[in-house]
């Protein structure tokens, strides 16, 4: 399905690459901008299906893109936002995931765009309201030595990290070459070990897991 996209990226090279990838998969760019203010203006004017934005861009070259994303989400709580970054920072991921669960949210390393099909898949999932978190964020989180996590088996950790990336059970099953029933069992074991209530929606589950890991 074709999505309308507003793209914010200050590097011309990177912008061309992103436009190339998105148009190739049939999405329509309704605006391409290079700074945070234009991003907000463009979204107000165009109301796209999804916003894809870089974090570091003019005017301040700090986290302008992220701040714009947060502001946009306050205005339009259901607006899907996918944020790209050269580095993954826990605090950025946390701020994004705290945006609430009305619309899709994504936080990916810029490098992931080069895995074209996976990137486009992530765009579609965020537009569909899911939460997508970069595996690197998850890896960093899981690297922190925390007691409850020590209680998980290696297989359960694998499942947890896929969960934290926002994948549904069916996708996890495909990824690990096991049955969906097995994944279900792992998930309930994990949630039990981490004292988390079982929750129907995929991204709620992610938020819960991440919130727990951040603590």
């Amino acid at each position, binding site marked *: 399905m074709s999505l309308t996209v507003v793209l914010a990226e200050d*590097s011309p*090279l*990177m912008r*061309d*690459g*992103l436009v*190339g*990838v998105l148009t*190739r998969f049939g999405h329509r760019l309704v605006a391409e901008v290079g700074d945070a203010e234009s991003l907000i203006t463009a979204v107000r004017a165009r109301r796209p299906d999804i916003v894809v934005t870089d974090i*570091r861009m003019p005017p301040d*070259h700090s986290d302008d893109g992220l701040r714009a994303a947060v502001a946009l989400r306050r205005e339009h709580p259901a607006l899907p936002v996918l944020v790209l970054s*050269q*580095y993954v920072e826990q605090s950025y991921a946390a701020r994004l995931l705290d945006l609430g669960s009305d619309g899709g949210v994504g936080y990916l390393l*810029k*490098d992931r*765009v*080069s*895995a*074209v*099909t996976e990137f486009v898949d992530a765009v579609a999932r965020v537009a569909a309201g899911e939460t997508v978190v970069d595996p690197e964020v998850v890896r960093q989180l899981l690297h922190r030595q925390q007691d409850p996590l020590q209680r998980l088996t290696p297989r359960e950790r694998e499942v947890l990290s896929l969960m934290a990336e926002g994948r549904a059970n069916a996708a996890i099953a495909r990824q690990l070459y096991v049955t969906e029933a097995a994944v279900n069992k792992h998930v309930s074991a994990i949630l039990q070990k981490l004292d988390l209530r079982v929750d129907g929606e995929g991204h709620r589950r992610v938020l819960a897991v991440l919130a727990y890991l951040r603590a």
Partner: protein
Amino acid sequence: MHHSTAWRAVGQSPWKFLTSSWPWRSFLYLLTGGLFGALVLTVLAALTLAGVVSLVVGVGAVLLLGVSLSGIVVSRVERRRLLLMDPDPLPDPHRPPDGPGARGWLATRLREPATWRELGFTAASLAAMWWMDVLVLGVSLGVPVLLATSPVDDPGAWPLAVLAVCLVPVAPYTITVWAGARAAMTRAILAPRDGELGRRLTEVRASRARLVGSFDAERRRIERDLHDGAQQRLVSLNVLLGMARLDAEPGSSVARQLDSAQEQVGLAVDELRELSRGVHPKALTDHGLPEAVGNLTARSVLPVTVDIRLPHRPPAAVETAAYFVVAESLANATKHSAATRAEVHARLHADVLTLSISDNGVGGADPAAGTGLVGLADRVAAADGRLRISSPAGGPTLLHAEIPCR
């Protein structure tokens, strides 16, 4: 280990030394020392005599008080004179007066140990050093003159005139060596003690803040350049490769090659990310100063002789400071000095890393002019060390750093 730069100068090739400013500066130092000493001796002798005589009247007490405080004035002049020999100014050890007016000043000065140390220095200076100044000047300049003029009375004594000519180049050496020693003694006695360093310690703290600040600014700049330049370029290249990969026949050799190309670019992106996270020579962390400096000089346009012998690795902060002193002074030498050779020399003596970097360039490096030297001094100060530079116009330039390894 306190090397006076004057003594280092003596160790150069004779031609270089004799054409440098050192002999003249040393001569001036001793000459002003002799004249000033004579003046002080006369004034103090007169004051003391007058004071003792008029002690009955009461005025004598004031005069004698003046004598006991004379060290303050003498030392102030001595600190100024020391700049002839040592570019690193001696800070004033005295506190600002506690109270207002002459009374407050007097009360503060009389209670300060620095005042009495300076009086002691004045006494030692008049009793010994001043005589030596006069003697060294007299012998090194007077003897050749006497010998040279002896054939005037006795034509048969012409060999003495030849000897005099031979003795002329020796004089600058004698003068410079004594002047160097005299300057070192002056510095040792008149340098503020730690207790008097309240003000200087804040200075070090300030420079530390400046150092860290400038370092961070530099790091940020590099990181941003990498981020906006090479990293974006590589990531977009990888996107292009990813697009090409879609067009390639699955399983074909082109697809495989594109896969490995993507993997390589991905690794490069990862490495760049690591690099921009901390710009620091890896060799320094892994292997220490000799290796890191070796890598540095291997890349240098300027031929550099490295002689670094350390029995064990100094602390990381010391290593880093030393590395940057070497890196920046070699960069300066390459950029500004037109040098054709440079030397890096480092030893560990009694827990002090002594480091010297010299080049045979045109000299004239002025700490007041550029921020580079100040930045280096900041780096060294942050490690509680000391940096001195001798860079007379015409060269050579010598940077000497002493960093304690505590």
